């Protein structure tokens, strides 16, 4: 029986993998060929999708990108034996895009059947949990501390220290909350992982529960990710049936249960306190800190709030040891970052690398430059609240501190490429527009500042009294940075100021005489 693997990741479905899978199954049936179709997550080489992988004695042979009309010819060419065909890629592991990566968190994504506990176990799953079950809580926390793991949501706060705080808090009920509200444009790693390897997140959350004494966890998934939500629901059900979740994890007598919850379209619910308010069934207003959620979080109880990738990396750390993780990286950025390369790029996808690789290596070597073939003009790193960098700054390394020093931010690792058709003054205007649309409304600098920001940018774009309006713009940005309650208002000036600093020509809108020759 031949096994054929086809991704059902949402991005794969978006480019037609569902139809390809159905046509392959139909064609095999028509020809009387025995075929087992395995639906997986994506390997994250999206420019090659939709693709199929056929299991042969030489390994998994990939064919793509495929059109529906390719399917009959593939079978004529002996696809189930890895036969020659113009769309034959070969083993994906041999693609430099993949072979040059350090896949720790994403080791299984795209390889395994996401909802098979057996497949998960056969690929190193639950080794970390089994070890954690033999350790006392402080030992688990210390391992995470030593690994140097920092919050992968974007704030980069040392995960071990957060867990330590919750461990030492006294309460009869503590919670683990996974922030799966991955709202930043240019990011999709959380989505891919929930769809492609949900057990890694579940295992990480169970370990977190053991470490801090929490018996209940929630995964808060943005509603724009329906496939990820369904995958997590099913993953939780399967894990519960198999005894990994429930009143006695692996028969240990220690309880941990998990619920998946859907957001409702609010970007601000990616901010941890807004997320907690939303989980509590309220408007997603941001809370002032202190108190920190670690001490006073969900329903007022000590709560670990961590990003999907932070939690899903914990099993690897527990299985391989803190030192193995900390040995990769640079400076105070230890371990690997699953970079997401997106936008106007030839080869977009998931690139997990040790910290220290440069933006240029990612955009040019992995990415192959723009999709349009036009010059790279700007690269936005870290999502909508991140800086726009010009091509001349691409030698910056992937490192929390290095990007902050360049007045940018690494954030959740999203990188969006723009060609020279982009007008950075319009991107600056969009930054304010987005902030205004998504502001929770609680603090004046954000609620009002964002709207004023759009108005100022409209005047600048129309060439109205530039000197005066640039002064207002700078003043407004300073105010929002210094006085906003959270990072939405507080960091909206980052893309704006970076656009102004690095692309001043785009802001020169004073009306001038048209060229006579035209």
């Amino acid at each position, binding site marked *: 029986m031949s096994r054929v693997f086809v991704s059902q990741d*949402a*991005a794969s*479905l*978006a*480019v037609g993998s569902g139809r390809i899978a159905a046509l392959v199954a139909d064609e095999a049936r028509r020809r009387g060929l025995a075929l087992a179709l395995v639906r997986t997550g994506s390997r994250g080489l*999206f*420019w090659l999708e939709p693709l199929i992988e056929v299991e042969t004695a030489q390994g998994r042979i990939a064919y793509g990108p495929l059109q529906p009309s390719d399917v009959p010819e593939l079978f004529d060419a002996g696809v189930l034996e890895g036969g020659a065909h113009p769309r034959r890629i070969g083993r994906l592991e041999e693609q430099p895009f993949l072979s040059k990566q350090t896949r720790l968190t994403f080791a299984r994504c795209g390889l395994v059947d996401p909802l098979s506990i057996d497949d998960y176990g056969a690929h190193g799953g639950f080794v970390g949990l089994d070890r954690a079950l033999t350790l006392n809580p402080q030992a688990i926390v210390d391992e995470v501390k030593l690994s140097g793991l920092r919050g992968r949501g974007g704030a980069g706060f040392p995960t071990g220290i957060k867990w330590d705080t919750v461990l030492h808090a006294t309460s009869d009920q503590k919670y683990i909350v996974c922030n799966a509200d*991955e*709202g*930043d*444009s*240019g*990011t*999709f790693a*959380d*989505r891919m992982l929930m769809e492609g390897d949900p057990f890694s997140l579940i295992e990480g959350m169970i370990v977190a529960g053991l470490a801090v004494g929490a018996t209940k966890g929630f995964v808060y998934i943005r*509603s*724009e*990710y*329906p*496939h*990820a939500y369904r995958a997590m629901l099913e993953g939780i059900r399967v894990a519960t049936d198999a005894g990994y979740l429930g009143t006695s994890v692996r028969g240990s007598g220690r309880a941990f249960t998990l*619920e998946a*919850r*859907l*957001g*409702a*379209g*609010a*970007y601000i619910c990616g901010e941890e306190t807004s997320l907690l308010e*939303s*989980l*509590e*069934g*309220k*408007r*997603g207003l941001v809370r002032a800190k202190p108190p920190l959620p670690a001490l006073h979080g969900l*329903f007022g109880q000590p709560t670990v709030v961590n990003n999907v990738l932070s939690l899903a990396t914990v099993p690897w750390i527990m299985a391989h040891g803190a030192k193995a993780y900390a040995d990769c990286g640079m400076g105070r950025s230890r371990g690997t970052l699953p970079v*997401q*390369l*997106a*936008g*106007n*790029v030839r080869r*977009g*996808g998931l690139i997990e690398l040790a910290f220290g690789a440069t933006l240029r290596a990612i955009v040019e070597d992995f990415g192959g430059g723009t999709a349009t073939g036009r010059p790279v003009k700007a690269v*936005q790193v870290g999502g*909508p609240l991140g800086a726009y960098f010009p091509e001349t700054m691409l030698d910056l390394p992937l490192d929390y501190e290095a990007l902050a020093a360049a007045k940018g931010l690494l954030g959740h690792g*999203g990188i*969006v*490429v*723009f060609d020279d*058709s*982009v007008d950075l003054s319009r*991107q600056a205007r*969009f930054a304010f527009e*987005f902030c205004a*649309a*998504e502001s*929770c409304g609680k603090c004046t600098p954000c609620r009002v500042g964002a709207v004023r920001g759009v108005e100022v940018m409209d005047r600048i774009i129309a060439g109205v009294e530039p000197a005066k309006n640039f002064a207002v713009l700078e003043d407004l940005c300073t105010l929002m940075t210094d006085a906003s309650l959270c990072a939405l208002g507080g960091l909206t000036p980052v893309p704006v100021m970076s656009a102004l600093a690095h692309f001043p020509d785009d802001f020169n809108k004073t009306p001038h005489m048209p060229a006579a020759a035209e």
Partner: protein
Amino acid sequence: MPSPAQWDSTRAREIIASLTALDGAALPILHAVQQEFGHIPEEALDEVASALNLSRAEVHGIVTFYHDFRRSPAGAHVLKLCRAEACQSMNGAGIARDVLANLGIGWGETTPDGRLTIEAVYCLGLCACAPSAMYDGEPVGRVTPEILSNLIAEARGQ
């Protein structure tokens, strides 16, 4: 996409009762109500308030905070177009502008025949396949004007 049901207070109470025991039940309840009725009907606010021991104003506040919750039904089909940065880098804005202009509607509006609503969404997580969209809950990547006009024609039964 299954057709939304007409308001039925008994059915609404059934749905609400099945979820009230959840911690922080409001969002799961509102999602379920919208799933059933296609929007959050006015009558639902009282039912939810009563079940959760909240004021009607508080429930109104929750419903109006989140972009997902509709106070009135959408068209028969919903096409969400991504307006965020990665999709902008691949001319998502230009494509969307043309679609809206051709249909003669604005963001969030429904065509006069009631067949299609076009909504803005800020990121679908399909950023390496930009520009992207979601049609009746199904993801669509590498969107072109042609792909959209085919979907629109399908929605309008043409």
